[in-house]
């Protein structure tokens, strides 16, 4: 009797679905056993989206002149871009069942390195960016190899590697910002617009599409999700679990460094700890996203929605003239609320 299941089993009589519509509905879990609408299931999947839409609607009514404008919408997306890029990379590591605490520091590292390569080494902007992405990938590779080959817990490994990266950042900069003397063309990366929309928004959505494809439409992405779901089952199904985990860390490292490049281009100078704060925002967004649309699995669309929801809230808080502390209370509360409600809803829906 080891077969005690926590998941409700589908009784045989329900298996013969009569109509196409019924099949479609029960396939998605919308209809419960008795055929009535399973509200908990809806809350679990779409609750967070409802919250986002409700927030937008509310602020649009309260602040129609400042909030509900296209320029403000673009502003919100632009503010989301950097966090989103870090968070989407982190999503790969989380989807593979690991943790990465080094992403924020890798962002700072990418920021100072790109400035240094351009200012000190006189590299062209494209070459500098490529090298920074490679350097970020190497941080991920080191993380991945220590986790899989040495077998150190991912939390500890990435904490250690992240701390070393902080040290490297200070060694490289002496603690001072690395400023590009003639920054116009580099700053253009974030300030230039196409059809009125700044470049980072395109980068965010472009990367989102690319990473969505990698996670959902490639062998690597499917393997990452399998390893995160059940590593032993994945191994016994012929998936090379260690390689897959390393690849996830590499993607996270490269994304963090990419975000650092954009961060530096905002001001034309790279601060030694400029990207550190993205760590917690990225984690918050990814976990928020795991409660959206899917049953607790990490995925790109969810992560993106997580970042956007927080940005909408921050934007409204600023427009309403609230104190800064409100941002933190909002972000923390939102995370607990979304994941908590998602967890309860899944448990109820399974009954």
């Amino acid at each position, binding site marked *: 009797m080891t*077969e005690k*299941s926590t998941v*409700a089993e589908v009784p045989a009589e329900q298996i013969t679905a009569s109509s196409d519509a019924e099949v479609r509905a029960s396939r998605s879990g919308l209809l419960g056993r008795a055929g009535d609408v399973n509200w908990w299931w809806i809350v679990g999947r779409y609750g967070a989206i409802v919250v986002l839409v409700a927030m937008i609607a509310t602020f649009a009514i309260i602040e129609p002149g400042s909030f509900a404008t296209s320029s403000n919408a673009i502003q919100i997306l632009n503010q989301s871009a950097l966090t989103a890029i870090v968070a989407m990379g982190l999503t790969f590591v989380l989807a593979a069942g690991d943790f990465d605490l080094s992403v924020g520091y890798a962002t700072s590292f990418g920021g100072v390195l790109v400035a240094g390569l351009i200012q000190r080494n006189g590299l062209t902007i494209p070459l500098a960016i490529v090298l920074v992405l490679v350097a970020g990938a190497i941080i991920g590779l080191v993380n991945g190899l220590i986790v899989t080959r040495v077998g150190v817990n991912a939390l500890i490994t990435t904490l250690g590697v992240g701390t070393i990266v902080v040290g490297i950042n200070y060694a490289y900069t002496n603690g001072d910002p690395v400023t590009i003397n003639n920054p116009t063309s580099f700053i253009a990366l974030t300030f230039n617009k196409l059809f009125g929309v700044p470049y980072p928004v395109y980068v965010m959505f472009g990367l989102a599409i690319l990473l969505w494809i990698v996670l959902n439409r490639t062998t690597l992405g499917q*393997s990452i999700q*399998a390893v995160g779901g059940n590593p032993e089952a994945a191994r*016994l199904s*012929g998936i090379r679990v260690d390689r897959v985990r390393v690849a996830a860390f590499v993607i996270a490292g490269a994304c963090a460094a990419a975000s650092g490049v954009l961060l530096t281009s905002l001001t034309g100078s790279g601060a030694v700890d400029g990207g550190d704060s993205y760590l917690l925002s990225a984690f918050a967004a990814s976990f928020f996203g795991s409660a959206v649309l899917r049953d*607790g699995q990490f995925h790109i669309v969810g992560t993106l929605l997580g970042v956007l929801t927080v940005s909408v809230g921050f934007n409204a808080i600023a427009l309403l003239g609230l104190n800064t502390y409100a941002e933190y209370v909002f972000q923390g509360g939102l995370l607990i609320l979304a994941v908590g409600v998602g967890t309860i809803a899944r448990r109820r829906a399974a009954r």
Partner: protein
Amino acid sequence: MDNSAPTVNGMRETGGDRASGRPTGSEPQRALLAVEGLTKQYGGVRALSEVSLDIRPGEVHSLVGANGAGKSTLVRILAGVETPDQGRLLLDGAEQEIANPWGATELGLGFIHQELNLVPRFSVLQNLGMNYDAKARYGLIRWGDVRPRAIEVMQRLGADFSLDREVRDLSVSQRWMVALGRSLMRETRMIAMDEPTASFAAEEAERLFAIVRDLTARGVAVLYISHRLDEVLDLSETISVLRNGQLVASLQASDVDRAALTEAIVGRAVQETTRHITPRGVAKDAVLEVRGLVRAPRVNGVSLDLHHGEILGLAGLVGAGRTELARLIFGADRLSAGTMTLGGRPFAPKAPFEAIARGVALVPEERRSQALLLRNSVEANINLATISDNRWRSELPLLSPRKARVAAKQMVERFGIKLVSVAQPVGGLSGGNQQKVVVSRYVRTGPSVLILDEPTVGVDVGARAELYKIIRALADTGTAVLMISSDFDEFAICDRVAVMRDGRIESVVDGALATKETLTALCYASGSPEQ
């Protein structure tokens, strides 16, 4: 090892009224623990049916029976892990209810399960202290009080290792001693030992027997569960035989011999003539040749041939090494010695992906923990071992969701998997349908050798028959199938059945002769194979 050793307080109470010495079996003695009419049903299956037995103080009472006879169920009830449907337990003649494991401990019943349940990173002393919190005040453990008691207990057991060593650094038999020591820290009146010698070397086993004799000399009762009949006959006073959940015999060890005991377990007279070994070398076209595989302690030199299009059953008792052998062939564990050839070429997989690439697949034993992504769709689960087969074009890395869906639907149709949609989470399917999902996943890898480890556990009767049909059909199309099962009735579908014992293939029986009785007898057979 005699009574001059300091008395352990756990033995003091019972030691006094047992001045008459060891029971001879003829004198009637009051039972320490009496089990009356115990019945336990799982679903429609009666795991235990009206079982009554008496365990007297100071005796070794052995419990024997084939796989699924009800031994574990009985022990689990005594340990407070399961509650019986009917029947009662009497301790010193007073009815007791054992609601949970702690209750069993409080009554002085100790259990040493096969898994031992020690904390590997704790020291010996810490592990011993875990069960000794009677000395804890205000939630604080006073190690100063624990240590002298621990020294006393471990000296009695003749332990030759420091209390400060971490348990993970100890050998299997040393760990077992720690587990026993933990039971003895408290006042213990009966200790149940489940297959204690399964992973012991011969001389280690001798030591264990000495410890058991010492315990009983002090009045502690030992409930001894083992498949090794020689041990059982040597050690016990009373032997209770379970078959299909019923107590079929309660014997005095002095009155029976090995043959009689085997007959009681199997249920009919065993004809030694049915035991024959197919001569090696007649193999028509062996797909897989296994020679001298070793991985201590469970696999100790296995050689076998698996032929094109045959179903080879692998019978054996729990702990015989069957799962471990399957994992070695599949590359899930590393070999320490031995060679294999597959299709005439050397075969030495370092990991499952290499085995699958060469056309060897294993449907693992634990469906939920080793095979399924429970939250993911049926489709994802079916395609798990063949993700790359669903690419748009073989030269592009992009996957086609349509191909994945078509592949899943084909498998659902071919294997008769009952579901609403291939997009539904696999966790919601019945056990039989889940198993079909797993089998279909590995069949899709196109194996020339398919190993199935307990493929019908937790599968209902209808789905079981369908699985047999699927397996037979695979063999008919040329796949070589190796099927491990503890339900010996299902070997009816096999062409040949190999019997494994103590990490070796003891004999290979023709499918036509492989009845449940014959196989069970062979599992218990002693000595070297006769010609």
